């Protein structure tokens, strides 16, 4: 089954994916990346690989495969 993976170095902390995920599988973190934005992590147990995070993300963080 397809799962989402994230390249959080591209993340800009907008949280659109957290709001859009239908399974609440994306967890907002307070950790920052090199650019200083607060990043996210994916709960692989909850992810269903629907691709909504990929579609919503303006910064191409996600890959679903």
């Amino acid at each position: 089954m397809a799962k989402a993976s994230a390249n959080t170095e591209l993340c800009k902390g907008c949280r659109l994916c957290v709001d859009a995920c239908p399974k609440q599988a994306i967890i907002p973190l307070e950790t920052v990346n090199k650019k200083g934005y607060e990043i996210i992590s994916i709960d692989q147990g909850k992810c269903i690989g629907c691709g909504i995070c990929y579609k919503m993300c303006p910064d191409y963080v996600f890959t679903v495969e």
Partner: protein
Amino acid sequence: MATYRKPVSIINEAGWCGGCGHGVVQRLITECLEELGLQDKAVCVVDIACSYWSLDALDYDAIAGPHGRCAAVATGIKKVRPDSTVYVHAGDGSSYVIGLSETCYTAIRDIPITMIVVNNGIFGMTGGQMNLATTLIGDKTVSSKEGRDADTMGHPVDMLNIIKNLDVEFAARGALYDAKHIDETKRYIKRGFENQMNKKGFSIIEVLSPCPTNWKMTPIQAMEKIKNENEKMFPVGIYTDRGGETV
């Protein structure tokens, strides 16, 4: 199950603010071009505004027109390179205010280019001034501090309702506030490129997009604003389609 991977034509990271809709629009354009096999012939015309970031991020031939004149620049490229796929990625300030005559005359001449207008209701790169065509009544910007007032500043105007009367090939409006509307917007953009591939006429696709930085909102609040306020004034859907159904 479907796999989703960043298009190979995007060779650099997106330069926009967090939560900006331009990044999604750029991805939809590159996905459509790659799916239609047009990426080697693509010429990108951007505007001197937020869409300018697309110049560095994409692996296409690209040119930045003077502010507002991207439709005229694209007309010139299409006239001398009729086999190339020319598209305009511009904002609403450039297309509907400063470059209104260029946009309208490109539509009147029915030049077979694809024009993608990102409607975020504000002049984003210059710091958030009011846009006469797309800022809603009551919206606060740096040049309408008390909110836009219809008596002194006039009403916003649905430009697609004007452009659809100019006998263009395709005019449609999409939105970016959820995955369903993003998919719908992608179908419109793809239709625009198919029209160009089949040597039909002028296609314009407007996209309702958030500008969280200048709207002074979180990206999620900005998406809610599009859904609850902007879409009421600027309804999504197909406005005219010479080859098919019309709304």
